């Protein structure tokens, strides 16, 4: 691993003082330019973890550092694709304006913004829907708008919370490859939350497996598969099958059998 970009150290989080913790003691780090998947059963605290990394929630204990600086507020150059994509889009704006809005905060020319919005929408296959409103689109299309918004922002750190959970299998494969090509093109650092074991292995350099709530890191598995990945070839590799099985075993019986 090269220099650590994101360091999560003994992170703990409780929603209510005295209540049950959502995160118990989570530690891991992500290197510059690395693509890391986080898998864990539903309710294990994956969303909570991302919120802490994004500076939207203040840890109850432990800390998150980005480039060595403790996160207290939203770090610049970070984008988060929310799990609740429908609620994360602004209903009073067209698809184009939704993607454009975050760019307005940056020192970009109108032309550059226009170019980025158009190319991001084209990348997710929504070039023809720029003038439509989010509520006119299907769930999967809304999710792609949310992804396009993050892509256009060209973040150095991209956090994605189960971004492909609601799309059909074919779109899902396409979006996975799109995520990989965006990652490669921008050299961003990606933290990708999913509950889909295949997806976690297919995309990542490393998979962090969370235990059921309150979360701790059950294991970290380095994914040893050549890049660029290919939906057919990669998934057919023996190494893919072994590593996906290793993750699956850990999810079933967390804390047992570190590779």
């Amino acid at each position: 691993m090269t220099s650590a970009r994101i360091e999560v150290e003994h992170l703990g989080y409780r929603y209510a003082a005295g209540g049950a913790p959502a995160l118990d003691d989570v530690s891991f780090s992500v290197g510059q330019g690395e693509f890391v998947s986080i898998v864990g059963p539903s309710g294990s605290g994956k969303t909570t973890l991302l919120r802490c990394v994004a500076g939207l929630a203040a840890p109850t204990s432990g800390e998150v550092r980005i480039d060595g600086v403790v996160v207290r507020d939203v770090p610049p150059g970070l984008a988060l694709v929310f799990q609740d994509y429908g609620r994360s889009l602004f209903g009073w704006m067209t698809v184009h304006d939704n993607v454009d809005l975050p760019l307005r905060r940056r020192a970009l020319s109108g032309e550059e913004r226009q170019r980025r919005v158009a190319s991001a929408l084209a990348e997710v296959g929504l070039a023809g829907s720029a003038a439509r409103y989010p509520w006119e689109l299907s769930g999967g299309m809304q999710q792609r708008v949310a992804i396009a918004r993050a892509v256009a922002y060209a973040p150095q750190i991209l956090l994605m919370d189960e971004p492909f959970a609601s799309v059909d299998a074919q779109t899902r494969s396409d979006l996975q490859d799109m995520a990989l090509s965006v990652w490669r093109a921008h050299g961003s650092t990606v933290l990708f939350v999913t509950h889909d074991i295949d997806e976690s292995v297919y995309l990542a350099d490393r998979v962090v497996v969370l235990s059921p709530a309150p979360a701790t890191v059950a294991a970290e598995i380095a994914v040893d598969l050549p890049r660029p990945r290919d939906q057919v070839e990669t998934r057919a590799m023996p190494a893919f099958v072994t590593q996906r099985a290793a993750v699956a075993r850990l999810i079933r019986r967390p804390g047992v059998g570190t590779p």
Partner: protein
Amino acid sequence: MTVGRGVRRSSRRTLRGLTGGLVLFVGLEVLTRAELVSPTYLPPASAVVATTLAILVDPEFLQAVAGTLAGWGLGLIVASAIAIPLGLVLGWSWRGYRASTTAIELLRPIPSVALIPLAILLLGRGLDMRVALVAYASLWPILLNTIYGVRDVDPVARDTARAFGFGTLATLRRVSLPSAAPFMYTGVRVAAAVALIVAISAELVGGGSTPGIGTWMLERTQPGVDRELMYAGIVVAGLLGLGIDILMLAGERRLFGWHHRMRSVS
């Protein structure tokens, strides 16, 4: 397809409205022509309609309508100018809201008509007094709806703005304000109906020489004046209220259709 259905539905509604109006008109006409009700109390509907048409081209009456609309409109503007920023602040900060609820709950139940004498004492019988009363009455629906609207802003939408580096003010402007706007509009729409009532009440109680539908009517309460005039005034006041309501509803559908559609999808 949906548009066609919508048009058909609205034309059916118009038809039903026209039928209702016609039945009312014929009923009243029969009632008065048969002298079941003394014509001293209730003139024939046809006479009222004729008088209404006549006063609608009478410059003095039109000036009265303009006067009422001035009190109504200025009062609404003043109320919005105060209630929307205040509601944004109170809705945004939970502590501010808690601190202000007592004051709101104490002031809100005072019927605005009960303030007319005080307003006359302080501001005289002219437009200022009417605007102040209309503003007072309109303040509450706008304020409460704005507070509610800001509190209702989806936390995920707010977090999205924050995650893209929007500060407090930018989030307020870019997310809370537009997402609460439909609620604010509803507040203004409710206030617009109340405002007309208060505007005419203030004219009726305050009297004075500033033109208004209320003062116009007041001047026609002397003996010997045609009753048709009074009824015609009432009809116009009613039409004004109806017109305002229809316009405000149409504006709501046009401006904030996204709000209902978004709700019905999610």
